[in-house]
């Protein structure tokens, strides 16, 4: 087990390195460079002053040295400062991370709470109307954009029924109840979509396992269909589900960028979008690095859970 975990952990290092390299190179894709973007085209500036600014930003150094310096600083938690506010980017990211984390976790909880039961029922009632209803749910969930779903939820629950506020955020630690209440609609917007993808996998995994020999043996022993499903099949069916949820977590994290915008939640995604609008490139870089790093970490976590659920993985 320890060997497996150690090896898996080591494997994330090259991935993280690659992610960091791409994020660093993105900065190079901007037309001109940071200095010309910062100064703007209209301003008259002497070549000497430009060269000095480039030196301040370290742009006069060879590119691999720049990368090494940037990566070294990033590893120590220093992502530089905002070009607009001069504040530490890492500090701002940490301030905004809890909102994004809360949104992601609540979405995930909604997705699992829906997908597991719907998937089980659809598999057990294969070919009958609950199964078809489940397929419709899956197809609709995979086809509706999250931002549109969010707007429909606002239209129904805020504007028509007046049950929930249409936007706004309260930190969880300040007022857990109100915070959760305000996060319900945003979390539903992402959770329903994640639930659709997960339901599909849950159903097919359940179907496969219910047809296996050991499920038949359990039935032959005289166990009720309910026991067979819940004790014998569910645990095994959850293995592919964990993998898919892990992969889908990426689209969930990406989705937070959009949903934070719809519901005015001050999270990492909204921070990145503000950075984009202000051409504050280091801010965008930092936010992208943080979200992508979180995704790599979740994938690591998934593999660890995988090993816990399925002993074959550890010894394989």
């Amino acid at each position, binding site marked *: 087990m320890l060997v497996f975990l150690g090896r898996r952990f080591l494997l994330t290092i090259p991935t993280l390195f690659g992610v960091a390299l791409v994020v660093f190179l993105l900065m190079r894709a901007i037309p001109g460079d940071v200095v010309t973007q910062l100064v703007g085209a209209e301003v008259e500036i002497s070549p000497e002053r430009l060269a000095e600014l480039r030196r301040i930003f370290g742009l006069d150094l060879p590119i691999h040295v720049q990368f090494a310096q940037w990566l070294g600083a990033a590893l120590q938690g220093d992502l530089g400062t905002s070009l607009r506010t001069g504040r530490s980017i890492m500090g701002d990211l940490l301030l905004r991370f809890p909102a994004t984390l809360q949104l992601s976790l609540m979405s995930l909880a909604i997705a699992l709470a829906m997908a597991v039961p719907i998937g089980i029922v659809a598999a057990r009632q294969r070919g009958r109307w609950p199964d078809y209803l489940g397929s419709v749910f899956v*197809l609709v969930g995979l086809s509706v954009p999250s931002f549109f779903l969010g707007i429909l939820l606002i*239209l129904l629950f805020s504007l028509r029924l007046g049950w929930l506020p249409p936007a706004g955020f309260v930190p969880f630690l300040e007022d857990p109840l109100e915070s959760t209440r305000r996060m319900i609609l945003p979390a539903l917007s992402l959770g329903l979509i994640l639930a659709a993808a997960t339901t599909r996998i849950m159903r097919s995994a359940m179907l*496969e396992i219910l047809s296996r020999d050991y499920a038949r043996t359990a039935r032959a022993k005289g166990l009720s269909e309910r026991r067979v499903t819940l004790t014998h099949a569910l645990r095994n069916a959850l293995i592919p589900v964990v993998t898919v949820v892990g992969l889908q977590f990426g689209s969930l994290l990406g989705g937070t960028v959009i949903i934070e915008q719809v519901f005015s939640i001050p999270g990492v995604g909204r921070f990145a979008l503000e950075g984009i609008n202000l051409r504050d490139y280091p801010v965008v870089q930092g936010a992208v690095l943080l979200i992508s790093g979180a995704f790599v970490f979740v994938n690591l976590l998934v593999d660890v859970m995988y090993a816990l659920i399925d002993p074959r993985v550890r010894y394989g």
Partner: protein
Amino acid sequence: MAEATASVARAVPSGGRGAKSLRLFLFRSAGGLGLLLILAAVFGATFAPYLTPYDPVTLNPPARLQGPSAEHLLGTDQLGRDTFTRILYGGRVSLAVAGASVVVALLLGGALGVVAGYYGGWWDTVIMRVTDVLLSFPAILLAIALIAFLGAGYVNLVLAIGLVYVGPFARVARAAVLTVREELFVEAARALGSRDGRIVWLAVLPSAAAPLIVEVSLRLAYAILYEASLSFLGLGTQPPTPSWGMMVSEGRRFLALQPWATVAPGLAISLVVLGFNLLGDGLRDALDPRLKAR
């Protein structure tokens, strides 16, 4: 050489199930419905000027934020422009950007996947590590970041969405190539002295075609979603050119006054994405029973 080619052609299993598959696809699955939705969208986008008397960008403030009526089928937006008209024209951008980005991804990702799968070894390692890194980013975030640094515009939009899909296409192509690489007919062609390019073109690619076609259809669904999302965030199509995502974003501010200006374009996105999803599922069931979703 010609002999080798002929033997490859003979050795490759031909589609005898073709007609049956087509019938199965059109009538027994929802694929036909998906195709219908997509054709309707393509038709509407292509013949927009003949389908509506209005212009998509001309302002008409006195008629702003109207509900559906005989004059304005889906009402008007905050500047008095006909929503139905803007949806028709908006389809042009959405469909063109989605189509072009999937072509970029298919060509680049497909080529990388074939090289990785066919040559294996060092090529395989390097290409797969690169796609691994690309896949380590949340897809929409990578697209947003690319647009943020490259700047907005159609070419960058296509590149950003296309690049995101290089990884998935490379994986599908590689997997397909791996399954046929050791087949007897490929070995036979190699033994007869066919060049690599010829073998890939005549023996390997036809076998990889089915999963790639399915992948194209499903990725088109996502590409429409991503174009809409980026336009919604203001990073895609720029005003006044209409696009579905931007229409949802603009209409949102007037949601309480006139929901139609937001709901109608949102439904347009959902229906076209649904169309590609149904088409993809139907194609998968018809072309490759092994991939069938249980």
